[in-house]
């Protein structure tokens, strides 16, 4: 018993597109899926060139694919991952999906016909929109995860681990290309007093506000991270000591003049800053530069806070004298 009669109802029900063309790109057949999605009727497009019916097709690209099918008698494929769609068709989830057109996996298969010697190609179009949407969600999530992995949860600046990694890389780069590099370490003055006066929420508020304010004062290439508690670090690539001190002075002054409104109260804060430049011969490890900047920061604290101190070459101990 022949099952040939089944082909027609199955093709009509099939949730994939089927288009048959010949070696002159003329349409011999297309199924209901294509008729509905592309708003065409087989009776109207039969015998017409596929490139005139579907005007948006990437013609040169598709012809090359089709030629390989005809010449080699082998299938050719196209995946949504490389080319989101070949046929510009709307898809079935216009509401819940972010993409406008149906993502497609297409197979181009050589067909043997009993009725004619003319070579035919069957183009199968499968809707891959769901996979496309999942992939988009996944990519977005991965980007967010990556960001979360390098961000400090509270202040949104770089976290310590990532910041130190960046410092190592920047030092490496500066040494290789003989570029200057400077580091600023700073600390919120009397943070404990702020916490006592405004509560921990107030303290956190100040950290968040200042981190965001200081970020806005920096260049894109500067790397701003939270070193711990109320201590932060800024890596300044391609910047010598003089330039770094200038930046620090500007930040220090701007912070002192920056009022923050918390629960109808104006909070003013100040910071103490230590600046050190990478000295290629002395600073072999990133810890060495941090230690120098930390020494300068300590001196700024001892000198009365709300100021910038820079590390002087040869300095090995914290300044003993208190101003």
């Amino acid at each position: 018993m022949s099952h040939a009669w089944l082909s027609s109802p199955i093709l009509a029900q099939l949730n994939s597109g089927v288009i048959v063309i010949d070696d002159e790109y003329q349409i011999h057949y297309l199924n209901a899926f294509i008729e509905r999605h592309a708003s065409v009727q087989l009776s109207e497009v039969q015998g017409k060139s596929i490139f005139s019916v579907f005007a948006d097709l990437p013609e040169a690209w598709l012809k090359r694919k089709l030629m390989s099918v005809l010449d080699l008698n082998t299938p050719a494929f196209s995946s949504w991952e490389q080319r989101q769609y070949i046929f510009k068709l709307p898809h079935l989830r216009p509401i819940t999906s972010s993409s406008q057109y149906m993502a497609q996996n297409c197979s181009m298969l050589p067909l043997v016909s009993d009725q004619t010697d003319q070579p035919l190609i069957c183009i199968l179009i499968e809707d891959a929109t769901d996979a496309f949407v999942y992939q988009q969600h996944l990519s977005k999530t991965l980007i967010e995860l990556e960001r979360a992995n390098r961000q400090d949860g509270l202040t949104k600046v770089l976290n310590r681990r990532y910041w130190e990694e960046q410092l190592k890389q920047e030092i490496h780069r500066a040494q290789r290309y003989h570029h200057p590099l400077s580091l600023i370490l700073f600390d919120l003055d009397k943070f404990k007093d702020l916490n006592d006066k405004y509560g921990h929420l107030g303290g956190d508020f100040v950290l968040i506000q200042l981190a965001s304010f200081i970020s806005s004062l920096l260049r894109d290439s500067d790397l701003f991270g939270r070193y711990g508690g109320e201590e932060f670090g800024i890596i300044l690539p391609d910047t010598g000591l003089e330039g770094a001190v200038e930046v620090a002075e500007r930040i220090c002054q701007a912070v002192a003049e920056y009022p923050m409104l918390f629960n109808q109260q104006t909070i003013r804060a100040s910071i103490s800053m230590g600046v050190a430049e990478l000295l290629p011969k002395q600073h072999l490890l990133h810890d060495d530069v941090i230690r120098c900047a930390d020494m300068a920061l300590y001196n700024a604290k001892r000198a009365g806070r709300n100021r910038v101190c820079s590390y002087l070459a040869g300095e090995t101990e914290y300044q003993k004298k208190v101003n």
Partner: protein
Amino acid sequence: MSTLGFSEEQRDCLQEIINVAMGLASDKLARFLNTFVHLQVPSIALVGASHIPAEFENRYQDTEAALVSQGFFGNEGVRGEAIVLYQMENAHKISALLGYEVGDVSEIEMLTDISSILTTTFLNGLADQIENSLSYSAPRVLSSVKGDMSSLLRNTSFHWEHALKVDISYQLVDHSFNCDMILLIPGEAVTNIQRILDRILEDY
């Protein structure tokens, strides 16, 4: 190397079929690419799939390599997965030959196209001779990164018992292009192929 239960006659028969398939493929490719294609007699080996990663570790070490997989299945339980391995510098060569221009298509698409053409022309020729016909899955790039080739192969070939390793070397006029093709074949499919080989041998 174990014979994996293939008799000498079966092995000879398979080598002959592969030689002819390769000849057919090179003829088609030459006409398609409009250039003379010289194909060496492919060296084939049947190996346990677990041997595959170590074997390619050296050859693709320190080079940018790519690995493309394509499934195939036919009648009488013939099925498996074809993996084509390239050094990327070789892949760039053939892309120019296929008429791609820089920026025209993505590197991945270029790779899947080349692999699909190589795999399906060869396997179609093979299927013809055993009076079979094959269907193919879309080719998929498993990796195109430096290094991690062997661990990827290890993960890929782990579930497969047998591998038919075919070394292919295409020499085109003014170009030379090398790649390796591995046909990974699961256990019961190998038995099915042996049955087909026996039938062919009987006919002689």
